[in-house]
């Protein structure tokens, strides 16, 4: 870890919307290349990036479409930059192929998705949380990502900053999943001084070209290989085909098994270091509301109303949606009467809660097709019915 580069950090108190706070979190986290195809409601992220990058030595480039942006992102990383792309649902769909490519090539990168209702172009200017399962399963084959869900502009800064560190630590794509309300709401954002912002640098090999560096050989005791930078004289091969430790295509079952095992284990063995959540009033709770993003703030009003009626309601807010805080939810299963899961989709993370709970406690989905937030009374009603 090292201190953040002070030229990029606007330390102090600001009044920012979530999109702008994302941009500042990225800059503080060391991002110096952003590739995008601006789309509502994420446009303000790249607007801020485009106006701030010239001052900090970064480069923003607008591409012809999201395919161009999402592959340029990966090129930027292999060229030595910390990089991100920014989009919303329709663009996120187009980027899925390259998300898988980032996963298999272990390219540390950040995607910001400011969610709007779908399917397809849906409601461009309105909030949704309908891309949660796409974040986990949207690209083909088995792969793992980290997905973070801020619920305020402050967290947009904090979690985008953290996304860049996580990407380097595990060499995986990290997704910051906003929704339109969090992206566009304005609140106080405190940006710490650079010495309080510890940045994970890219881990480059210490071997020189010709000294037997292998691109996908993890150092002893680690599951995460070291990197090299294009142009530094190494002969490397980066491919989306199943590859061996040298990075060469090796299309056979043992290589596939070995590669996939390491790609899964590098995240699964470190879940405890990655997962984060916020819990309130879980001790003695009859019902636990599981929520994330803007819905967690709307749910707070519903929870208060239910508590006023004497129901013991706790809340569990997902900060990492993926990896899912499985152990923590499992520990509550069987102890509470119900999990109530409001979200701005027709039931996505509710499926994960249900899976983890394994029938020990009922899971009540409180769906919403998006376009606005829940009426808190609907959530209160679901809580009251769940304890009956």
């Amino acid at each position, binding site marked *: 870890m090292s201190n953040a580069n002070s030229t990029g950090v606007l330390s102090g*108190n*600001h*009044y920012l919307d979530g999109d702008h706070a994302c941009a500042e979190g990225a800059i503080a986290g060391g991002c110096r290349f952003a590739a995008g195809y601006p789309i509502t409601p994420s446009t303000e992220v790249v607007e801020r990036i485009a106006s701030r990058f010239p001052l900090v030595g970064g480069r923003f480039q607008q591409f012809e479409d999201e395919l161009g942006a999402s592959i340029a992102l990966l090129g930027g990383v292999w060229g030595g930059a910390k990089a991100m792309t920014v989009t919303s649902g329709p663009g996120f769909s187009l980027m899925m192929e390259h998300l898988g490519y980032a996963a298999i090539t272990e390219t540390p990168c950040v995607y910001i998705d400011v969610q709007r209702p779908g399917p397809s172009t849906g409601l461009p*200017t309105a909030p949704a949380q309908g891309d949660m399962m796409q974040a986990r399963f949207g690209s083909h084959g088995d792969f793992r990502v980290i997905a973070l869900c801020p619920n305020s502009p402050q967290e947009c800064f904090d979690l985008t900053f953290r996304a860049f560190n996580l990407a380097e630590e595990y060499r995986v794509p990290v997704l910051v999943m906003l929704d339109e*309300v969090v992206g566009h*709401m*304005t*609140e*106080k954002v405190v940006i710490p001084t650079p010495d309080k912002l510890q940045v994970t640098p890219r881990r480059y090999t210490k071997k020189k070209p010709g000294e037997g560096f292998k691109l996908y050989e993890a150092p002893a005791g680690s599951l995460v290989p070291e990197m090299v930078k294009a142009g530094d004289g190494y002969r490397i091969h980066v491919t989306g085909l199943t590859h061996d430790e040298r990075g060469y295509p090796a299309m056979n079952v043992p290589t596939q098994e070995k590669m996939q095992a390491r790609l899964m284990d590098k995240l699964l063995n470190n879940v405890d270091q990655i997962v984060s959540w916020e819990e309130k009033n879980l001790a003695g709770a009859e019902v636990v509301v599981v929520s994330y993003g803007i819905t967690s703030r709307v749910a707070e009003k519903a929870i208060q109303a239910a508590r006023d009626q004497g129901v013991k309601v706790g809340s569990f807010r997902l900060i990492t949606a993926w990896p899912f805080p499985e152990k923590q939810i499992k520990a509550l299963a069987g102890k509470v009467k119900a999990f109530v899961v409001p979200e701005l989709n027709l039931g996505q993370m509710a499926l994960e809660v249900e899976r983890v709970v394994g029938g020990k406690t009922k899971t009540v989905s409180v769906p919403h097709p998006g376009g606005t*937030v829940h009426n808190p009374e609907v959530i209160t009603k679901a809580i009251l019915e769940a304890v009956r």
Partner: protein
Amino acid sequence: MGPTEIKFGGLGGQGVILGGIIVGKAAALYDEKFSCLTQAFGPEARGSACSAQVVVDEHPIMYPYVHHPHIMVVLSQDAFVKFSPELRENGTLLIEEDLVKPTNLPKGVKVFAVPATRIAEELGKRMVLNIVMVGFFTAVTGLVSEQAAREAVKDSVPPATVELNMRAFERGLEYGKKLVAKA
């Protein structure tokens, strides 16, 4: 006291959103309260009714939306017609007196009017009418402190226009104070 909900409405181009941002910023950055601003966000352009919503509280704000504002600030008749039914009974309405003629108000609403555009024109730039309104808001509602509002104005306008905007703020403030003293 609980959260205070405020809605700013007017025509796109009148600086309505900036007015909301300044009040929110004054509360959150300079008065050590909490505030959350959301704005009606859509494909509308200049000239149509637009609005900003601000919640101010002594405690962290969880629910960010404004449904029944305690205070409403409107700068155009269109915005008045569109938004005034949301105003709470016994709420406070601040209007641009030459541009808004209030009718059919909810029960018990107190109305405070200021010729913000005329004052701004006297200062040489009609554009600063929103800052006149922020000064007026500060005096009439007392929701943000004068010093906090001054800092927030300074912090939110282009550097070359700070002086003009500060004059606009002081004029609105002064007008509001006189009106309150009379009431």
